[in-house]
């Protein structure tokens, strides 16, 4: 059996959960293994019903007051019991911050392993092989399980199409599962989730984004990217290291810990293209990358590649844009 564990927060399933379900459906179709799903939390029956509308054999609603708010101790304890009782062959989850927080603990508690942040799978004969990026996306590896099932896999945000998830012919049965989380298991005391400051810039609405990465070298050089963004009538954004250095505020950060954008044009200056950045911008309609390293992973997803020194390329580019705008 393939078990997809979807993720909910505050009573809502996140988009990447549907992507993981799509992956589960595809693997089920290829292997002939039955597909089931589960959702865990304080009160998740309604969400289980929502998932049951998709093409799945069964949906489990794992409810326990100790699962709300989320803690790795409660989730690992509850899911360990559940998985041990169901004995799935394959357990699929989205590679979210929450899953990253508990799934290595869960798998270790069961003496198993997790192939994390996978971007796809292949069936080679009887063997399932999962692909994942390594060395910051410079290489891809085919990874297989060498030990016993259950095999745990987490899928990267955007690896599958959530809107391609198949609906079921009729609603799948929903089973409520009673799980016991003993007192004293949960050691962490999480406080309320909050946002640091009200987000000043909503980059998700920008049609044009000029983003800078480490290749910009110094804080004072941000100015040239800013001029380019202004010339294009777009917003300025950055990869994480730039915001970590305080060269641009955190609310201009694109990537897994920042904003996810899909503009008409994404112009990446001196961004190598680490996975954590790519997941935040690969939905852009057109990607232009300027980087001096011809092997930078950003070029893998670029529509237009400029291999060169951004400090030489950007000034004439600003001039040409101004000319083009003046002439139009």
């Amino acid at each position, binding site marked *: 059996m393939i078990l997809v564990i979807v993720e909910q927060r505050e009573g809502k399933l996140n988009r990447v959960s549907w992507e993981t379900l799509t992956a589960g459906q595809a693997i089920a179709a290829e292997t002939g293994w039955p597909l089931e799903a589960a959702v865990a939390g304080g009160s998740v029956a309604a969400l289980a019903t929502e998932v049951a509308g998709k093409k799945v054999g069964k949906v489990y609603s794992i409810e326990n007051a100790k699962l709300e708010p989320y803690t*790795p101790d409660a989730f690992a304890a509850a899911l360990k019991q559940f998985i041990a009782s169901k004995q799935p062959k394959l357990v699929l989850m989205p590679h979210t*911050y*929450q899953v*990253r*927080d508990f799934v290595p*603990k869960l798998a*270790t508690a069961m003496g198993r*392993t*997790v*192939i994390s942040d996978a971007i796809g799978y292949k069936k080679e004969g009887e063997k399932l092989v999962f692909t994942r*990026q*390594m*060395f910051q996306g*410079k*290489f891809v*590896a*085919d*990874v*297989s*399980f*060498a*030990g016993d099932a259950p095999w745990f896999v987490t899928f990267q945000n955007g690896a599958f199409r959530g809107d391609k998830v198949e609906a079921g012919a009729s609603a799948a049965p929903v089973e409520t599962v009673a799980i016991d989380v003993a007192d004293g298991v949960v*050691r*962490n*005391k*999480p*406080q309320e*989730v*909050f*946002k*640091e400051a009200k987000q000043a810039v909503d980059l998700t609405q920008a*049609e044009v984004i000029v983003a800078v990465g480490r290749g910009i070298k110094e804080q004072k050089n941000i100015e040239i990217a800013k001029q380019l963004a202004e010339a*294009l009538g777009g917003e300025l954004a950055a990869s994480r*290291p730039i*915001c*970590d250095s305080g060269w641009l505020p955190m*609310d201009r950060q694109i990537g897994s*810990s920042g904003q*996810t954008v899909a503009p*008409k*044009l994404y112009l990446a200056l001196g961004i190598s293209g*680490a996975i954590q950045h790519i997941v935040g911008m690969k939905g852009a309609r*057109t990607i*232009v990358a300027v980087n001096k*390293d011809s092997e930078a992973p950003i070029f*893998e*997803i*670029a*529509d*237009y*590649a*400029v291999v*060169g020194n951004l400090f030489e*390329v950007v000034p004439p*580019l600003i001039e040409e*844009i101004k*000319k*083009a*705008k003046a002439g*139009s």
Partner: protein
Amino acid sequence: MKILVCMKQVPQKDAPLKLNEGGTWIREDVSYEVNEPDAYALEEALRQKEKHSGEVVVITSGPARASQVLREALAKGADRAIHLEDNAFVGLDAYNTARAFAAAIKDEKFDLIFTGLQSDDYGYAQTGVILAELLGWPHATIIMQIEKQDGGIRVKRELEAGFFQFVDMPLPAVLTIQSGINKLRYATLIGIKQAKNKPMRKVTMAEVQSALGENLQRIEKLYIPQKTKKTEMIQGSPGEMAKKLVEKLRNEVRVL
């Protein structure tokens, strides 16, 4: 507070990487550096020690070259180092790496263990959490702030899309540290000099072997990703490239 920092040596960010002949791993004749989040983990440990006193111990596994990250950590202020030295450590999966670390520190008593949130080579983002489970300790991941308080610590977890959360937890605990939690320091000349006299314990594969098992996951093949997109190269002098690009932006991307 007695803090252990798990560190890893990884290929330099800009280093051009090549596959080995079998396509199973990279050719190792490249330049290496400390895994970036691990550098932040070390810095955080040093700052905690400066505030609350105690000891900072750094640990790594890998061949002789990996001791460079330990020497740098000692020069920045770590008190002593543990090196699990063997080329075979490079090929361990996260579960086995965590088991090797747990075995190597079994006689130690730490209050906190820090790791970087993930490595720039494998990118598993798992070793710290696995280590916590093996030790039976609580953990928290992707940490941006640590405050000592009565009976434990309060940490700030980074969540997705700009959200954060404070978590109170008891000690001992394992924390995985996010880049940008602090500002990194440079080693001083005097630090570099003092580092030479600081203890570095070597641990052989034989000493921890009994704690390890077969890898539970296997890298079958490593390869250059297949392009899914057709990329058009813009070539010429900077001026020519600018002209060509603007033409594309106007006629094809239609943003001008």
